[in-house]
């Protein structure tokens, strides 16, 4: 049985030891091994007590001052993907870009940031339809010492203005690559010529900047799960080693077109775990490169290395609207991108304010009082609580409420399955598994074991 402490210490114990633990009949030897693993604090062990407190503190995420903005300078797009998450509008529409007043308000927001670093992600729509707005924002950040800009683009067209932005060392490119050309065409571009244009542009930016500057995500349709090797190959062929598998999010317009997504969740979980296993095999067969599924790696690192990732999707507590916000094309402000899509699809209005008059902290804080799994009755009894997180907006989007018993939510089912897989692999004796885990955990060598067994 797996024993896990609040600080995330864990060990696999014989059933008999667990029975002695429950019966309050631990032997001295039991107590020794358990305290060595940080799972028991003996009286007269001040260091054990401090180590435990420190370990718990390390697990508590800290949302600092606002330093991460997701900006939607335009809702217009030159593609019409089958599941577009955002509710885009046609390229020629008017009234869906920031106007002068919105831009001015966004720039004021930037002037007011009080941090040493800033990350700004440009979303859309297709933000490269308005390079002038992107440039205005980037120029305004000059005073902030550490800056990172990510342009999320479909890479359909790169004109000179856009290229000049890409050329900046502080700009990164994020795009979507759904698999082989046929899948990409089916889900996104609609035809071969448009797909070819995208693939040529992707090749062009990769050749020009190398893979560290360019990231790509596949959106996977759980109703038509792509061939794994085909998907992996399409990334590997572009020299991209990290794949962040993303199931179609059934918010936004996608909700209308893919009504069955809810039933497909189980198929998705199965696919994800098979995908991770396939990566392990491929990494073992070809040691020259390390392929990884980004979300699995994040979960794995959360088990061993609290604080290693600053990932807002999985943290605890996970307050919204504090260290990052989304500014929509009309200046409205949302706590997350999902909240924006949800509002747009008419499910529920989750805007917390706008960029002109600021946002109301009170309603947000009331929601954030529930942004932790720490005191949730189900999570408190769950072995994965120290590693897992909370996603208020996901619950709202699926159930319209945040008070469903945790184990009845898709967030819980997905993470339960994820951490089941993580721990199965941690205790695997297969050298291929150990090899991939070590690489995903960024270790110099490959440990002989990742988890302790107590007898």
């Amino acid at each position: 049985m797996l024993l896990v402490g609040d600080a995330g210490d864990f060990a696999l114990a014989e059933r008999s030891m667990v029975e002695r633990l429950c019966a309050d009949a631990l032997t001295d030897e039991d107590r020794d091994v358990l305290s060595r693993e940080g799972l028991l604090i003996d009286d007269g062990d001040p260091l054990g007590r401090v180590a435990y407190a420190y370990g718990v503190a390390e697990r508590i995420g800290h949302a600092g001052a606002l330093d991460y903005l997701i900006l939607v300078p335009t809702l217009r797009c030159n593609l019409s993907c089958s599941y577009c998450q955002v509710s885009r509008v046609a390229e020629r529409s008017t009234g869906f870009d920031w106007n002068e007043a919105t831009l001015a308000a966004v720039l004021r927001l930037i002037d007011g940031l009080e941090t040493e670093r800033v990350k700004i992600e440009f979303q859309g729509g297709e933000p490269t339809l308005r390079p002038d707005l992107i440039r205005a924002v980037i120029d305004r950040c000059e005073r902030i010492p550490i800056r990172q800009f990510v342009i999320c683009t479909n890479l359909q067209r790169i004109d000179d203005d856009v290229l000049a932005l890409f050329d900046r060392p502080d700009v990164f490119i994020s795009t979507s690559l759904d698999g082989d050309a046929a899948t990409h065409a089916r889900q996104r571009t609609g035809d071969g010529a448009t797909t070819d244009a995208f693939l040529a542009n992707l090749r062009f930016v990769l050749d020009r900047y190398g893979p560290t500057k360019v990231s790509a995500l596949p959106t996977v349709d759980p109703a038509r799960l792509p061939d794994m090797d085909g998907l992996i190959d399409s990334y590997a062929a572009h020299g991209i080693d990290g794949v962040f598998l993303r199931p179609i999010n059934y918010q936004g317009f996608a909700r209308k077109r893919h009504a069955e997504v809810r039933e497909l969740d189980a198929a998705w979980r199965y696919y994800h775990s098979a995908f991770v296993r396939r990566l392990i095999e491929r990494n073992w067969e070809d040691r020259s490169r390390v392929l990884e599924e980004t979300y699995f790696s994040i979960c794995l690192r959360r088990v061993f290395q609290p604080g290693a990732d600053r990932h807002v999707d999985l943290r605890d507590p996970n307050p919204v609207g504090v260290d990052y916000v989304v500014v929509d094309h009309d200046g409205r402000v949302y706590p997350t991108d999902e909240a924006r899509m949800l509002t747009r699809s008419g499910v529920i209005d989750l805007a917390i304010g706008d960029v002109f008059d600021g946002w109301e902290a009170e309603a947000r804080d009331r929601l954030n009082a529930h942004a932790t799994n720490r005191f949730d009755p189900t999570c408190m009894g769950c072995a994965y609580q120290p590693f897992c997180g909370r996603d208020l907006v996901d619950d709202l989007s699926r159930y319209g409420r945040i008070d469903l018993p945790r184990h009845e939510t898709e967030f819980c089912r997905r993470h339960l399955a994820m951490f089941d897989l993580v721990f199965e692999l941690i205790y695997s004796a297969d050298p291929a598994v150990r090899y991939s885990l070590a690489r995903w955990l960024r270790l110099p060598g490959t440990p002989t074991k990742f988890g302790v067994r107590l007898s």
Partner: protein
Amino acid sequence: MIRLTLPAASDAEAPYVARLNTGRGGVDEADAALVDEDAEGVTYLGRHGVLAIDGASATELDRDVVIVDPVGGRAERILRRGSGHNTLLVTERCDQLCLMCSQPPKKTHVDRFALFEQACLLAESDSLIGVSGGEPTLYKDDLLGMLERVLAERPDLEFHVLTNGQFFDDDDVARLRDERYTRVSWGIPIYAADAALHDRIVGKDGALSRLEKSMAVLARAGARIELRTVLVADNADALPRLARYVAKRLRFIEVWSIMQLENIGFARARWASLFVEHARDFGPIGDAIDYAALHGIRAQLFNFPRCTVPEPWRDLARASISDWKRRYADACAPCRERDACSGFFEWHPIQQAEDGVTPL
């Protein structure tokens, strides 16, 4: 090798501190200004009178802070300009007696805290000053008082204090939480997770248990800790277990330095029985580093010539040996990683060094 102590003559009655100054860019009250230089050495004049130092040039000594000992006839270059390796040796007494001690302790203590304090106030801006011994915290109050006063006056300075962690107690928590201590890091040795083994290596019963108590105090104070483990034959195989101990119980440290032995002090006499040829079997060291890294503990290797470390761990090998006692083998000449490499201690067995390198 750079000489740290030079013959000097002065008419002063008692030891004093001065900053040597060639005169370019103005002379302060605390400075001894250059008056003459010849083949023998340099002559300065300051508020303590004339000071003649032999065996160095005015350029070499410019803006060094020295402690002049008129009776002993020497000047100690306490803070050398431009060196990142300046260390104050605040006492030679110690309560432990480590197997491999590089500075075997002496019974007597000469209290020079006041001189060190004056010297620190004259330090170059933004410098990091080491404090070592003996065991500095045997004089904990004097030590902390000196650190606090210097840090208050000089917000640009930082200290790194080597201590065996045998003397911190609960009363220190509040004191060490002071904002000034964010500019102090504590280098603390631990040799094994097994108390009997650790205690045997440091020559003191109950040492690990006392160290744990101090560690709890330092953790509660939010102190910055560099954990140090010197590799000897006795603890090499116990290193992976120590890594697990660190990952479980000492997660609050900043970094864990695993250090190869220095051929001086006790280690010199016991070299054959203590030195671990890590190039031959890196196994337990690699395991320990991997286990630490797995749990997010940053490990680094000190005094490991880079070419002797297998490739996966090579980047953890730091250029750790102080400038004044570092040298490279002749065979190192063509190596491209020399600047990043620790090289060898001046007193490392020459043949062992020459035979052991493979330029990168």
